């Protein structure tokens, strides 16, 4: 027997639940913000600053130290997007981010020349290294050591011996700063690796590329910071380093607010200025020494 009253009440309950859900969603959509009470400085007009950076800068943990300092000093809220340098600069070209911290100098210069990037300044540097298995089938270590003066094409010699030995090589393949550097070295070595069976493009981040190289017993080009962080989990050793072409330079640039009116000009400038400030320099200088025995980055701003 169907009893009328409880059923009617139940039907109304369903309608109320549905309405409440929509209401909750609307409230959440409008009210979502970071936990308050973190900033001491007065809140500026456009609080949000979007920083596009590379995974190597983000994964080192350096930004996790620097950015909270910036936020408490200025009251800006920084949102970090980590991807490859290619992605970061592409987003800059669309005005979707305010500041870029990348390590792809040629592309960065292109952005500045196009009037989209402003105030490009060096922040820090470290270096790239060629790594591979300790038994080194292609003789990379010997080839690199044979070049007495490192600036005389030591990295290119290393790459040439990899190509010559048809040894497996893992490439980032993702237009990141590391990938671009790798392509430059192949060019200097006079090798066209694309499409060759020993050349494998993985389209993944640095840590994963290293892992793949370790699993497959292959060579790869890596930034020293990521390699140091993962060294214990990898079956790889450093085979070639010290060539000036392997220097890995990180620069900061702002996206031009006159080209894109939705870009946070003052916020972007404040963050860019902060990253090259003496305060930031003194954070970068000792960073990583306690964990790895050597600093991960060398500050460039003077």
């Amino acid at each position, binding site marked *: 027997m*169907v009893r*009328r009253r409880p*059923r*009617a009440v*139940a*039907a*109304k309950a*369903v*309608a109320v*639940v*549905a309405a409440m*859900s*929509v209401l*909750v*969603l609307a409230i*959440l*959509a*409008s009210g*979502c*913000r*970071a*936990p308050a009470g973190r900033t001491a400085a007065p809140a500026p007009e456009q609080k*949000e600053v*979007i920083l596009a950076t590379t*995974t190597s800068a983000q*994964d080192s943990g350096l930004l*996790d130290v620097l950015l909270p300092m910036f936020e408490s000093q200025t009251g800006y809220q920084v*949102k*970090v*997007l*980590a991807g490859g340098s290619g992605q970061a600069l592409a987003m800059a070209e*669309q*005005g*979707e981010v305010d500041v870029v911290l990348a390590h792809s100098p040629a592309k960065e210069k292109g952005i500045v020349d196009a009037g989209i990037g402003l105030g490009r300044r060096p922040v820090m540097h470290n270096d790239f290294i060629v790594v591979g298995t300790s038994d080194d089938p292609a003789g990379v270590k010997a080839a690199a050591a044979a070049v007495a003066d490192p600036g005389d094409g030591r990295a290119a010699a290393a790459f040439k011996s990899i190509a010559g030995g048809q040894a497996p090589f893992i490439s980032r393949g993702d237009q990141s700063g590391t990938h671009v550097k790798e392509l430059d070295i192949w060019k200097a070595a006079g090798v066209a690796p694309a499409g060759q069976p020993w050349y494998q493009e993985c389209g*993944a*981040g640095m*840590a*994963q590329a*290293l*892992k793949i190289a370790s699993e497959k017993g292959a060579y790869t080009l890596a930034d020293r910071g*990521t390699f140091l*962080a*993962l060294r214990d*989990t990898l079956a790889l050793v450093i085979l070639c380093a010290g060539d000036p072409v392997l220097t890995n330079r990180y620069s900061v640039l702002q996206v031009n607010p006159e080209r*894109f009116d*939705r870009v946070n000009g003052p916020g972007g400038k404040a963050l860019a200025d902060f990253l090259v400030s003496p305060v930031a320099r003194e954070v970068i200088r000792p960073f990583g020494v306690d964990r790895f025995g050597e600093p991960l980055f060398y500050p460039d701003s003077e």
Partner: protein
Amino acid sequence: MGVIWNGIVEAMRLLVRGDVEVLRIAALTLRVSGTATLFAVAVGVPLGTALGLVSFRGRRAVVSVVNLGMGLPPVVVGLWVSIFLWRYGPFGFLHLLYTPAAMIVAQATLALPIVTALTMAAVQQLDPRLRLQVLALGASRPQFLWCLWREARFSLMAAVMAGFGGAVSEVGASMMVGGNMLGRTRVLTTATVMEVARGNYALAIALSIILLVIAYLVVLALTLAQQRRRPA
């Protein structure tokens, strides 16, 4: 084998110690996916019921689109939602990108077709004579719906669980529209991917275990509700 064991040990340690960051990530995961599922149910159940009961011209076309939605690749949803929410996108003025709200939108978009299609199938499975009988007994529209939903509750609960499962397991879209930002939009799935990318495998395994536990507890609660014996 060592990595797996380390991962399990790490998961225990994180939970027992009450690691603030992990708790925050887990809480955000529940909040975002729970809200998205709630929204998908609030809209999807009435919609699916309507599609199941009402015949109209072009119904089959609509049904096929809904069924397509069930197989929608999450990364596609993430890409399109982020394009719409970009500063210079059509909904950029909402400033939703890289907030939990954007993740709720993406996850709800994924869960909605699942809930709708399964509800529609559940309703269509009911004996048409039941509908006639309920109407013949003088049920009003809300009473009629309530009766149908009670009859189909097993399948409806399955629809809710499937919707929640789709939402909570989402990583590609959540990464794209949320940005995996520390303290703001980092959830268990995006954190797991990040830790893998960083090479912290023990932590990644620990996070994945925590995610499985949470997903299991929610589904367990829903299953108990689903399998509860009817009052005699």
